[in-house]
């Protein structure tokens, strides 16, 4: 790992304090296994030494990263050298940087560290992500400012430095040619920061109306159920209690307790995720989001890379006149699962706040204010058929079971509940269904329980897919999928009348005009 003389900046190491943090972090991750070990006396037939051995190996491997990882930002390039057995050199032009995430989990914060994650604009997920875990918090902030400034001003590179292994993705020209020969300036000019939104603690009341509490509860249940065998005595005593109280009271108590638990978890999740939420805009052309109670996140997005918004209005939030807002952009690699490729702009908050921020970010009002074109009677019929038919089948099956004497009457009655609700669901789903085209954006809305309005920049459309199942063709509708490099990658416009779908294709991809008969 000798550093070649390159005439410019030397390679930097990660912060040595990570050697302190890392073992603690890994030990905590192993904690449930260790607790189970000590509580039950044995987790399984294998010796507890195995668990401890695995923990030690993980810690040693993690700590070796400090000795093997070096990075530098020099001559318009970010270089990262890493790997214990396989040496890896990753180099990427600084002007490819799209997002910089600074995350500080609780242990990092205790010793003043932060983790930096740099996203570049490649369509591939993992090969191009640069993670520096961890740097001193001020160094991390300075690095973020420096990178985003470079990205904004396109500093010309100095000729071939250091490793010489310039890995340009996709075989594209990796850097603009150093024509003007100016000297890169390391200090960004003072930037002006403008606050767009800060969290109002009162919005925490919206937390129980989202599905996150339910999901957390399910996750906890999944975790606990692994240790269910150990809980058998508790369960037996609960069964005794049920017999003493009678079924109805027990049921009511159980439901109330479950609801309270779910609400509690939703509130906890909201506070952990969104405490201190602040969205601001820098004059350099970036949006900054900072949030989090124990683990703090600081995300920076280059505004030129934002390809649209997702305005979420799930049932509960809609009922409370609230919503939430995500930005979608290329090179957004932060977050897991559903958050992948998207960044929070507004946590669950009043609708006015959501729409206000959406206007500020888009810089225009048309995509939000325009009336959506409805999809017509065929689409409405399909909403009803798709909601009512499965519910009717369920009710029919239950009735059959009741007639044969296999099912108690109460269960049969419960099976009729979906049938009662389904027409309402269908009506609400059709009411939401619609799309619109403005000069710069395509807007699509759909869903009832998870209603969403997607606003996608037409400049970011990389293709269009029209899909029609056998039944859709019979009904004379088709689903148009707008393909984009950002967010969910494909945004669906559901059940558009067939002729309109063809117009949409041509409007979204003007090159498709070559494939049209000369009718229009």
């Amino acid at each position, binding site marked *: 790992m000798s550093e070649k003389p390159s005439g410019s900046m030397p390679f930097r190491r990660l912060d040595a304090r990570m050697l302190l943090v890392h073992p603690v972090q890994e030990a905590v991750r192993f904690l449930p296994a260790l607790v189970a070990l000590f509580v039950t006396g044995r987790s399984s037939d294998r010796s507890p030494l195995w668990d401890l051995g695995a923990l030690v190996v993980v810690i040693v491997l993690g700590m070796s990263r400090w000795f093997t990882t070096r990075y530098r930002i020099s001559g318009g390039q970010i270089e990262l050298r890493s790997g214990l057995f396989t040496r890896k050199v990753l180099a990427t032009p600084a002007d490819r940087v799209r997002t910089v995430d600074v995350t500080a989990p609780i242990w990092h914060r205790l010793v003043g560290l932060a983790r930096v994650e740099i996203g570049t604009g490649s369509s591939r997920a993992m090969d191009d992500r640069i993670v520096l875990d961890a740097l001193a918090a001020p160094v991390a902030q300075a690095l973020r400012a420096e990178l985003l400034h470079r990205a904004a001003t396109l500093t010309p590179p100095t000729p071939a430095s250091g490793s010489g292994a310039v890995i340009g993705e996709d075989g594209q020209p990796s850097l603009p040619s150093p024509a003007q020969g100016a000297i890169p300036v390391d200090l960004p000019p003072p930037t002006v920061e403008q606050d767009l939104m800060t969290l109002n603690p009162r919005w925490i009341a919206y937390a129980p109306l989202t599905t996150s509490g339910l999901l957390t509860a399910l996750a906890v249940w999944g975790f606990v159920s692994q240790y269910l065998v150990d809980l058998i005595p508790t369960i037996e005593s609960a069964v005794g209690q049920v017999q003493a109280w009678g079924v109805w009271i027990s049921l009511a108590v159980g439901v109330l307790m479950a609801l309270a638990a779910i609400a509690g978890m939703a509130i906890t999740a909201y506070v952990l995720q969104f405490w201190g939420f602040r969205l601001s805009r820098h004059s350099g052309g970036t949006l900054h989001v900072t949030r989090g109670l124990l683990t703090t996140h600081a995300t920076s997005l280059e505004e030129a890379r934002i390809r649209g918004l997702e305005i979420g209005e799930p049932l509960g939030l809609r009922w409370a006149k609230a919503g939430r807002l995500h930005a979608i952009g290329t090179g957004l690699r932060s977050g897991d699962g559903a958050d992948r490729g998207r960044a929070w702009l507004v946590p669950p908050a009043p609708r006015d706040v959501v729409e206000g921020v959406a206007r500020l970010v888009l810089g225009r009002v048309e995509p939000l204010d325009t009336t959506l074109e409805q999809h017509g009677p065929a689409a409405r019929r399909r909403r009803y058929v798709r909601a009512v038919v499965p519910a009717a089948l369920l009710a029919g099956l239950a009735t059959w079971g009741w007639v044969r004497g296999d099912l108690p009457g109460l269960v049969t009655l419960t099976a009729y509940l979906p049938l009662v609700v389904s027409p309402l669901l269908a009506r609400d789903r059709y009411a939401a269904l619609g799309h619109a085209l403005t000069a710069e954006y395509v807007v699509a809305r759909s869903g009832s329980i998870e209603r969403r309005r997607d606003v996608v920049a037409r400049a970011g459309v990389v293709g269009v897919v029209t899909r029609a199942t056998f039944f859709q063709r019979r009904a004379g509708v088709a689903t148009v999928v707008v393909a984009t490099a950002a967010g969910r990658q494909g945004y669906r416009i559901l059940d558009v009348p067939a002729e309109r779908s063809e117009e949409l294709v041509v409007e979204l*991809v003007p090159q498709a005009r070559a494939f049209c008969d000369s009718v229009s």
Partner: protein
Amino acid sequence: MPWTLGGGLLGDVTGLSSLVLLRPPAHRVSPRARVLWRIEALLGALPVLAAQAFWWLRDPASPRPIQVWLLVATIAIDTAYLVVMPIWRYRVHRWEVTDEAVYTQTGWLTQERRIAPITRIQTVDLTRGPVAGMLRLASVRVTTASSAGPLRIHGLDHAEAVALVERLTTLTIADPGDAT
């Protein structure tokens, strides 16, 4: 609304196209593609039949009524699939390339049309499986920066596929940019 799907199973199979604006892509894939799809379907059906044969051989009480019904159903479904699917698909599968865009139409029960501008293309690749190789066929796949929109043309004549890849590559090189 003058939209109809002409009656029978194989009626107006390219239903998407029956109206005003967008016409189907100009070129069909190779007629040998039908053979390819049929062989692939057959290979897919074999494990199910093999599993049933195994059951017949191992179960001393064979043939039970349920085994017979299962076999009859399997053979009926497979035969229908083998006969209908390739013909239907061959009628649907079409492609076209201009200097500005790629356009494909695929599927049979569920049909799809995909259009991507040349400027948005990121990769073009050609694949030929063992069966396709024997039939001198190949598939071309065109990807964009979005994982939602790759275009695939199955069952092209191999020489035609090679020429297509070459043309697309030339067109794509002529247009630099990061295609996002």
